């Protein structure tokens, strides 16, 4: 969760061309084996890692120096196989097949080598110069499993190394292996397919193609789709006539021997790979203890029938409580600090004779709004992000998805949507990108469109403040109300997902698989520093960079008059009827509109608008804030509707841009804007009706 400072997508390989003497190395492997951890260890960068499948969804590159060599490392998303057609594995697969690189490192898990060798063997066949890195050695050792990498290396004729990604020395060992060269591997697919491969090879041999490339080409003609084969054709620069001849040969081979069934032939191909992976692993792996096939004690609690939901709620409550409680004191301090700063700036400006025409907008516009954003946003984020990252690193997130999957299947959605929602809690833009882990396009769209229903870290502090002012006197009560608000978000997400499945995104729930990784001890120090530096400060920086100019803008429009009335008053007057209709008011609506670039500034804009022109300009404490709100006409209903609208309204512009990028569809982006807005308006109207009935 959170945005990456350095998450880069395509275009990484373009760098390579300018990078003549260096070497490009891919980090590939199954999900959750420590590719990103190794990458970070080697490059000193801070790619996000997390103990669940699908943490990395786009490419990232970094540089390492080894001796006099420059190495460009590229961190790939995990994949299970090179031959799958699923969308989520496409990025990695296309890189391995089509990009130019010098070495491919395949990271495997030492505890279950045979499973991981399946992908490793596939990659060894496609690309020469593969290096196998058997990672998580420390974990395997704990389970009494030892891997003989020398035997492995001899057997596969590629360099192999045993590592624990967190040990610097192990990473060095890996780097030193990159010098070695090796050939592509050949696996015996049995007489029938081998004969077919030879036939194809003799068809294409005239083009000067490598034997290994011809083998891969022949196999993929059998089990891959047209688009992929075409790409392979241009990669291998085969002429149309040669390609067509090979293609029709493969079609007739498929027809005669497998009655045209791709399933049958790809079964046979994977069987051969699996057999050889199993054979190799039984030669190279020794297990001292029998493998454990029972749930661990923690799992019996965390996904147990009676304990799973109480623990989930308790954990959520605990995190929110700690966030609210812990943020209180630093928030007050920061607020006092910014008040002080404002006074200091004012006297300073006075002393050096800056006219108040300039100093007042700076003090009351820029400093005040920025002060609010920093003092209200920073402390909760600095507590929430690390705690959430800890849960992520331990491996709790997939357990949440496991527990909740039934609800999603009833909504005809994918259980992995729970994972994207968790990421949305940190930042909706990150949640939207995370939707790539959902394979079915229909279910991915559902997850993507409903992601902003999860209040992100920019909106949490707003909720905390308003709940604290109006509904709860203690931190515990605030946290309890927040749990309720989150439960409402989840319920609405499920309901809307269901409605989408019945209308515009019609369809049945598709198949899905969810990996439950072993629990892992997170590196607490690293989690804290990383989540504060990479996430909190990054998000805060973005908020402040919006807050300062918006603060100035709002001060200006509040103090520049057209006729006898300020521009602000004109604007709120226009918005007022709409705002009142949904139980809010014009100022609040204006706040949300101006908050499009960053939700963090909504509340300070509202306060600024309420207090402009009145004597009440100081809002050092929450109780004074309450007075501001009440004297501006807020009732309990306004507060409730404000909370509803905070959770359900248009996503911030970053999120919308991300939706646009992920779907490349203006229509879906517009829908992503309108859907939550419509939901918010409807819920606000319902609440307005309920309140009017109560009176």
């Amino acid at each position, binding site marked *: 969760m959170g945005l990456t400072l350095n998450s880069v997508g395509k275009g990484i390989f373009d760098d390579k061309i300018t990078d003549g003497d260096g070497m490009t190395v891919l980090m590939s492997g199954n999900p959750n084996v420590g590719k990103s951890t190794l990458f970070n260890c080697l490059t000193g960068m801070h790619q996000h890692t997390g103990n669940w499948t699908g943490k990395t969804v786009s490419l990232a590159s970094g540089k390492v120096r080894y001796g006099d060599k420059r190495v460009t490392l590229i961190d790939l998303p995990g994949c299970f196989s090179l031959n799958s057609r*699923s969308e989520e594995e496409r990025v990695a697969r296309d890189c391995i097949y089509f990009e130019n690189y010098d070495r491919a490192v395949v990271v495997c898990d030492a505890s279950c080598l045979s499973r991981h060798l399946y992908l490793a063997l596939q990659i060894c066949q496609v690309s020469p110069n593969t290096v196998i890195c058997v990672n998580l050695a420390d974990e395997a050792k704990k389970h009494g499993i030892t891997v003989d990498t020398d035997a492995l290396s001899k057997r596969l004729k590629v360099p192999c190394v045993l590592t624990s990604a967190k040990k610097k020395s192990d990473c060095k060992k890996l780097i030193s292996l990159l010098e070695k060269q090796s050939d592509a591997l050949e696996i015996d697919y049995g007489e029938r397919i081998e004969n077919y491969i030879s036939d194809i090879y003799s068809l294409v041999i005239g083009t000067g193609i490598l034997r290994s490339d011809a083998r891969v080409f022949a196999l993929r003609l059998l089990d891959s789709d047209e688009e992929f084969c075409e790409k392979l054709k241009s990669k291998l620069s085969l002429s149309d006539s040669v390609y067509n001849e090979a293609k029709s040969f493969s079609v007739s081979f498929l027809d005669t021997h497998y009655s045209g069934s791709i399933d049958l032939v790809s079964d046979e191909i994977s069987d051969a790979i699996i057999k050889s992976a199993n054979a190799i692993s039984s030669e190279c792996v020794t297990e001292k203890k029998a493998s454990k096939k029972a749930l661990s004690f923690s799992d019996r609690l965390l996904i147990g029938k009676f304990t799973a939901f109480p623990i989930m709620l308790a954990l959520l409550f605990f995190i929110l409580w700690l966030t609210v409680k812990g943020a209180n004191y630093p928030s007050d301090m920061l607020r006092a600090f910014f008040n002080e700063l404002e006074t200091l700036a004012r006297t300073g400006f006075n002393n050096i004779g800056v006219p108040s025409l300039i100093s007042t907008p700076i003090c009351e516009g820029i400093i005040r709004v920025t002060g609010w954003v920093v003092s209200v946003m920073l402390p909760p984020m600095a507590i929430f992000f690390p705690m959430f990252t800890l849960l992520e690193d331990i491996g709790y997130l997939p357990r949440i998805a496991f527990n909740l999957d039934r609800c999603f299947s009833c909504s005809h959605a994918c259980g992995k949507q729970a994972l994207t929602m968790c990421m949305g809690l940190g930042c909706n833009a990150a949640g939207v990108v995370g939707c790539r882990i959902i394979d079915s396009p229909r279910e991915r769209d559902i997850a993507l469109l409903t992601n902003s229903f999860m209040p992100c870290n920019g909106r949490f502090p707003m909720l905390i403040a308003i709940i604290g002012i109006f509904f709860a006197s203690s931190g515990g009560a605030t946290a309890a109300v927040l749990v309720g608000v989150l439960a409402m978000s989840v319920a609405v997400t499920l309901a809307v997902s269901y409605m989408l499945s019945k209308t515009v995104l019609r369809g049945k729930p598709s198949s899905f698989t969810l990996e439950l990784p072993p629990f892992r001890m997170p590196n607490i120090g690293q989690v804290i520093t990383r989540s504060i530096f990479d996430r909190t400060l990054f998000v805060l920086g973005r908020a402040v960079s919006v807050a300062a100019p918006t603060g100035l803008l709002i001060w200006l429009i509040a103090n520049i008059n057209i006729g006898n009335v300020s521009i602000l008053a004109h604007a709120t007057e226009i918005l007022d009827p709409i705002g009142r209709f949904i139980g809010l008011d014009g100022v609040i609506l204006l706040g949300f509109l101006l908050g499009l670039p960053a939700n963090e500034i909504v509340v300070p804009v509202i306060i600024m608008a309420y207090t402009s022109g009145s004597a009440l300009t100081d809002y050092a404490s929450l109780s004074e804030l309450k007075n501001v709100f009440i004297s501006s006409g807020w009732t309990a209903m306004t507060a409730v509707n404000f909370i509803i609208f905070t959770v359900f309204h248009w996503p911030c512009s970053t999120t919308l841009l991300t939706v646009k990028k992920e779907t490349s569809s203006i229509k879906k982006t517009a829908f992503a804007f309108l859907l939550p807005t419509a939901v918010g308006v409807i819920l606000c109207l319902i609440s307005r009706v309920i309140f009017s009935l109560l009176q």
Partner: protein
Amino acid sequence: MLTAMSELRKGEGGIIKSIEHVGNMRRRLIDIGFNVGERVTLLTRAPLGEPSAFYIKGSVIALRRNDASLITVITEEEDGTDPKQRRQGHF
């Protein structure tokens, strides 16, 4: 005896006999380790009854009931209980 993988009891294991899925899901299941001849154990069901967590080739993977029911496994009758009685254990 032969059963659908979704019908295994908690803690019960079996050897995968066949996979009835077709197309992408078939490939996916094979890719993540549901291979014929491999031993699979049902570890637990989710608190709401679905999905189930299976231990396969050193990892734990959850599948929904529909998906698991299309995989057939051979179980060893160690305890000799009547198959009819077994059904009562779950839903």
